[in-house]
């Protein structure tokens, strides 16, 4: 399962088209689009909405993630870095929540050709500068707007038009490592990433989380139309898909080994026939797990053992224990 979260419908639309997703029943009021194994949920703007959206979807039994699944956040972002062209696709390596200063780190395990960036998630659209020695930030909500055709979307609803500049260290503090000064320029600002991560970490491991941001503006108050957002995402979704689909396949292939329903039933039947105590049932499960790893299957040999040794349920625990020992010896 690949679960994609966007803040706005205009960010979601190109993804819905690309994967040919179909509208499903809303989840707690969030719009959901799916075509197996891909699901997309529109969270609304802001990290709190994002966190609620992730939690709503992941805690619903139909969409509860497991080890083979991934979560992807896609949205537009602002940056002060003029070397990043509009439409540049950034992959988040670190996310800082500007309301808590908490940092989140997706595992950077898979090879890619994207530009990596730190994503600063702000609770509101921001302007001004931030001094990172104390990370003092000045935020003020800007009531600018973007135009979605004839519909005006309030700035606070849009993940994108954020304006801020960050000074990484006190000017007085000498930076002896060059990489620091390079790194500071690669900041992008959004309004959801930290919320997505914060909620997703309850359901996913950090190597399953991916944060893509497309540069939409240089935080200079430029107005963005719905059509601009559509084409920014649409220009990049192919690249994102090309990268995440193989990762999904890879993680699916690494899912932990679990017993099938048939194996579980046989395990239970054996435990009952041998009248095993709870701790011995646990040992039996371990033994069968071991046998399955070693031989690929335990059902055939266990059925055979039961057929040859256990004609009827053991009379008591002692008799069961004796047969369990015998089984253990022959399965080791």
């Amino acid at each position, binding site marked *: 399962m690949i679960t994609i979260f966007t803040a706005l419908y205009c960010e979601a639309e190109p993804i819905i088209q690309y*994967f040919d997703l179909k509208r499903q029943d809303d989840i707690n009021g969030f719009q959901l689009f799916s*075509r*197996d*194994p*891909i699901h997309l949920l529109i969270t609304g703007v802001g990290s709190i909405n994002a966190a609620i959206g992730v939690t709503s979807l992941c805690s619903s039994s139909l969409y509860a993630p497991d*080890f083979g699944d991934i979560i992807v956040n896609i949205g537009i972002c602002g940056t002060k870095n003029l070397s990043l062209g509009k439409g540049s696709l950034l992959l988040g*390596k*670190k996310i800082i929540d500007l309301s808590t200063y908490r*940092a989140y*780190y997706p*595992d*950077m*395990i*898979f*090879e890619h050709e994207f530009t*990596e960036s*730190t994503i600063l998630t702000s609770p509101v659209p921001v302007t001004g500068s931030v001094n990172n020695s104390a990370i003092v930030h000045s935020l003020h909500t800007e009531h600018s707007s973007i135009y979605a055709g004839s519909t005006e979307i309030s700035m606070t609803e849009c993940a994108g038009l954020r304006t801020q500049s960050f000074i990484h260290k006190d000017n007085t503090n000498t*930076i*002896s*490592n060059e*990489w*620091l000064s390079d*790194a500071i320029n690669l900041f992008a600002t959004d309004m959801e990433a930290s919320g997505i991560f914060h909620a997703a*970490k309850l359901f996913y*491991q*950090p*190597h399953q989380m991916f944060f893509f941001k497309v540069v939409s503006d240089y935080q200079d108050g430029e107005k963005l139309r719905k059509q601009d957002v559509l084409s920014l995402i649409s220009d990049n979704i192919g690249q994102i898909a*090309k990268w995440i*689909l*193989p*990762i*999904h*396949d*890879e*993680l699916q292939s*690494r899912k*932990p*080994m*679990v017993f099938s329903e048939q194996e579980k039933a046989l395990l239970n039947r054996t435990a009952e026939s041998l009248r095993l105590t709870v701790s011995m049932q646990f*040992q039996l499960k*371990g*033994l069968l*797990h*071991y046998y399955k*790893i*070693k031989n690929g299957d335990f059902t055939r040999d266990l059925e055979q053992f039961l057929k040859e040794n256990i004609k009827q349920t053991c009379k008591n625990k002692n008799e069961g224990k004796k047969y369990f020992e015998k089984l*253990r010896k022959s399965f*080791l």
Partner: protein
Amino acid sequence: MKSLEKASYNAAFSHIYVEKEIIDHPNTIEILSRFPKAVKIEISRYNEIFSRSNQSFIIQKKSPALILAKKYGKFLFEGAPVCQDFGNEHFYYTTCVMNCIYDCEYCFLQGMYDSANIVVFVNLEDYFAEIEKLLAIHPMYLSISYDTDLLSLEQKLGFAQKWCRFTKAHSDLTIEIRTKSANNKAIEVLTPSKNIILAWTLSSETVQEAYEHKTPPLMQRLSCIKKALEKGFQVRICFDPILYSKDWLSSFEEMVEKTFTEIPATKIHDASIGVFRISRDYLKRMRKNRTDSVIVHYPYEYDNGVYHYGSHLSHLMTSSACDILKKYIPDEKIFVWN
């Protein structure tokens, strides 16, 4: 929806996390200079990455990140009962690096740590200061490569050199650097001393190939040992852990034979033998991490907080291994973990 492409993992240390506090530490700068292409990410404290709950040790092992940090608190630990002390009264171990570039299926580190990323504490000077304090009271035997394989990382960290230099200047201190590496280059740059023991863990070819992922094969380890002996190092050989399989004895015998065909037994400082055992808490986590490992899921017997092959099999394996080893090494030079 399946993709025709295959996902590739980043090379180890493609990303390096650096604690703010030690950004300017000389060891940080030295280490980072050896990774010009790595992405560096500033962090506050190493545990915000390393100690997060719900990480995948197994996936991270495929592409471990490096975390450079500053160690606080306790620097030296008294040897645990499951460790061999080699007859040393004041046996300690220390952890200047946590985790290892190798990926042995039976490794206890995967039961100990939440993450497979490698943490390097760069403030070695603080370790040295603590050691000097203790040395003022009594001599000390210190295992410095306990939660890692320091020698395998030598080209990247240069820590073994620093430890050896310090040890050479402190005659009351003996250090053991345990390794599975075949890092000839490291041996070239290290200076031997009678209080520096290089301890190689050797495993049969079958075990190495099947369970000690990313480690050098037996013959490469042996040739590195040969080099170390020629250079005058004290060399310990550890046949530990010995893993059970139906043909473990013949594989073990073959390995010991190969070992002493390659290296002169008389030059060995000492040897150790230990059959696999693991604490309950570690095994529990290892089983969760590695659902497909026969080593980890073997139905071990349990007592006193430790899982093992059962006293009968463990004793049998130990005494058989000992008998084989005694053909080459005198009894008094063989240390057995019972």
